[in-house]
């Protein structure tokens, strides 16, 4: 990098990260999120004291059909092992202080233990003592009507009583089928559909793809995509503010008499971009650290991470250049922000085709979006995750992106130089194209 570009990089970076607005935005945001979480925690703790989950429900069986089981009855269905582990961890971290939410998760994971009561009065007394979370009364004419009366301690839509209804259904099915149907058949009645999905792999063979596999492959590309979109949105303001500074202070003519427009643009892009990325990194580290640990625990493919990083960097440079160059066409800060917003939206366009790309990562739409520089980064990151990329597409699209960055810098420098020298006049589109042609 040329010496003068480096001088601009240093000035823009240090000038930005020392600004009170940057410091407040960077460190204030996690503090705000922390305070927000703290308030929810306090309210949750208070609620937990009032509404501690019991994991039990009382049953008064006037019909005499219920066959009570040892231990809790689960909700049924299959919860993926990774998801169950993650929820276990969440409960361990939050403890009972998370109140109703913890109760809900606990009920989901552990199921409900049904306790028999002879009379409704005894059951309701136990409910009043909070020994159980709900009471179900099975009337004598249940077989004829199918109706059951429920007493729920909470009005919440996620109360223990409501969550216990699925396990109660399973208990009643087992009770009604007992001695009449073979136990394996009962299990199939309760859980008749466990799907194992096979899809075409990269070599054309049918392979099984579970939820964990999907998270492992798409987690990183989606994470980088979201980071790219957020970083472009966050940095566009900083970039435009940075270039509008020279225009608003009318200092640009002095600067351009000392350094050529391309070096100045590159210096600003790198310096301001680094400040924007640093802000994002701090937010991620402070606010989303647990998410990082979770993702890291999924044994990610280093190749996917490296490729996504390469697309991320090139995309950031490309969109940063375009945002900066078009931002200076505005006559005031509001104009500049709107021009910059256009590119942020352009970057997100492939997300509109997410479903198509996941279904057909090697399809025509995905391939076309991959070679268009503006849509290439996000498309390629998603396709790499979906294993829909031929090996030669990666160097090809990286080369197209690198060339696009170089061309964008070249043309943007011309627009940048001329636009910055114009004060108070909004250029027309033909004028902009003429500047791009002119040396």
């Amino acid at each position: 990098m040329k010496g003068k570009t480096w001088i601009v990089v240093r000035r823009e970076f240090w000038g930005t990260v020392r600004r009170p607005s940057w410091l407040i935005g960077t460190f204030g945001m996690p503090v705000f999120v922390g305070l927000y979480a703290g308030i929810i925690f306090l309210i949750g703790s208070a609620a937990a004291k009032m509404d501690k989950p019991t994991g039990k429900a009382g049953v008064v069986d006037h019909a005499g059909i219920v066959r009570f089981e040892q231990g809790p009855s689960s909700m049924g269905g299959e919860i993926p092992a990774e998801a169950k582990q993650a929820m276990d961890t969440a409960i361990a971290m939050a403890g009972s202080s998370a109140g109703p939410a913890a109760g809900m998760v606990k009920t989901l994971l552990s199921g409900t233990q049904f306790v028999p009561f002879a009379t409704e009065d005894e059951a309701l007394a136990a409910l009043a003592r909070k020994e159980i979370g709900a009471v179900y009364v099975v009337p004598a004419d249940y077989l004829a009507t199918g109706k059951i009366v429920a007493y729920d301690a909470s009005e919440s839509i996620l109360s223990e009583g409501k969550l216990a209804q699925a396990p109660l259904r399973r208990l009643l099915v087992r009770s009604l089928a007992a001695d009449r149907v073979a136990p394996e058949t009962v299990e199939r009645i309760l859980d008749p559909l466990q799907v194992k999905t096979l899809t075409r792999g990269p070599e054309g063979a049918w392979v099984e793809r579970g939820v964990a596999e999907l998270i492992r492959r798409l987690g990183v590309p989606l994470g980088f995509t979201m980071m790219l979109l957020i970083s472009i949105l966050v940095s566009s303001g900083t970039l435009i503010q940075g270039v509008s500074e020279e225009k608003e202070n009318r200092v640009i003519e002095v600067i351009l008499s000392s350094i050529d427009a391309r070096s100045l643009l590159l210096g600003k892009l790198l310096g301001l971009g680094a400040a924007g990325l640093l802000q994002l990194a701090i937010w991620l580290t402070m606010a989303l650290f647990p998410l990082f640990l979770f993702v890291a625990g999924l044994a990610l493919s280093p190749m996917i991470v490296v490729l996504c990083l390469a697309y991320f960097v090139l995309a950031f440079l490309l969109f940063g250049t375009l945002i900066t160059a078009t931002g200076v066409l505005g006559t005031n800060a509001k104009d500049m922000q709107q021009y910059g917003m256009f590119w942020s939206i352009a970057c997100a366009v492939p997300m509109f085709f997410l479903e198509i790309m996941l279904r057909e990562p090697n399809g025509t739409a995905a391939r076309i979006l991959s070679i268009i520089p503006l849509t290439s980064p996000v498309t390629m990151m998603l396709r790499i995750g979906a294993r829909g990329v031929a090996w030669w597409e990666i160097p090809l699209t990286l080369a197209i992106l690198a060339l696009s960055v170089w061309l964008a810098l070249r043309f943007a420098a011309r627009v940048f130089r001329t636009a910055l020298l114009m004060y108070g006049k909004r250029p027309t589109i033909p004028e902009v194209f003429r500047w791009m042609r002119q040396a």
Partner: protein
Amino acid sequence: MPQLLIDDVVKAYDATVAVDHVSFEVNGGEVFGLLGPNGAGKSTLIRMVMDILRPDAGRILVNGQPSTGADHDKVGYLPEERGLYRKQKVIDVLDYFGRLKGMKGPDVKAKAQAALDRMGLGEWAKKKVEALSKGMQQKVQIIGTLLHEPEIVVLDEPFTGLDPVNARVVKELIADLKRQGRLIVLSTHQMDQVEELCDRIVMIDRGKRVLYGTVRQIKRQYAEELRRTSGRANVVVVDGEGDFAGLPGVLSVEAVGGESRVTLDPGVSPETFLAHALGRGVSISRFEAAPTPLEEIFIHVVTTNGAAAA
């Protein structure tokens, strides 16, 4: 070899030719005036010298070589559109400007501080630019232009916004730069300052060069033309004793200091007046034909050029 050569330079914006085949040269140790009415093409020409804009045709040579990015560091530029980073400290702004002009090492700030001290702004070094008055900011800008000790100095309206005291400081600075052998291009509308400071001038109107030469040459050339075309009267300054008003061909006499400023009838030359005075035995210790003010030449050329273009 001239230090700065502008050779047949052309620059157009669409159908408007801002600079139309302009040529001139400037050497070290001279103050060169770049004159012209608003919109004449001066700023475009200066921006091309500074390599901010590129000419469509022609050459700009610095020390005999085409002007390149490397020449940025040899030039100090004070543009007409002036500005500083308002939220930054004065010393930091000067440090940044100096480094962009190729200054290196830890002593850039020390040099900037010394320059601020010389201009009477030493105590403002750590203040933000926005705290300074307009005149102070102007001085900071001039320091920023000269901090890297450039060979070529381009000053576009350097006296705008300065009070008489600070204007004198800047004039002394320009004289000092000239003594050091620097090349100074001075663009201004203040003709009295051009007369006072410039050795040679070029005047541009509607993109074309309309005047070029030493101030003395141009004045001499246009004194006669102005008399002929606009009937402008000759004026002489006389130090002596006698009735000047009673002499033939005298229109009016005005006492200025200890001297008399005598306006002659149209068509009467200073030589004729002097012959009359000596013939009548008037005592004269000093006699001088008052030069035609550059301002009148400026207005005459612009008006004539405008009429011709119409």
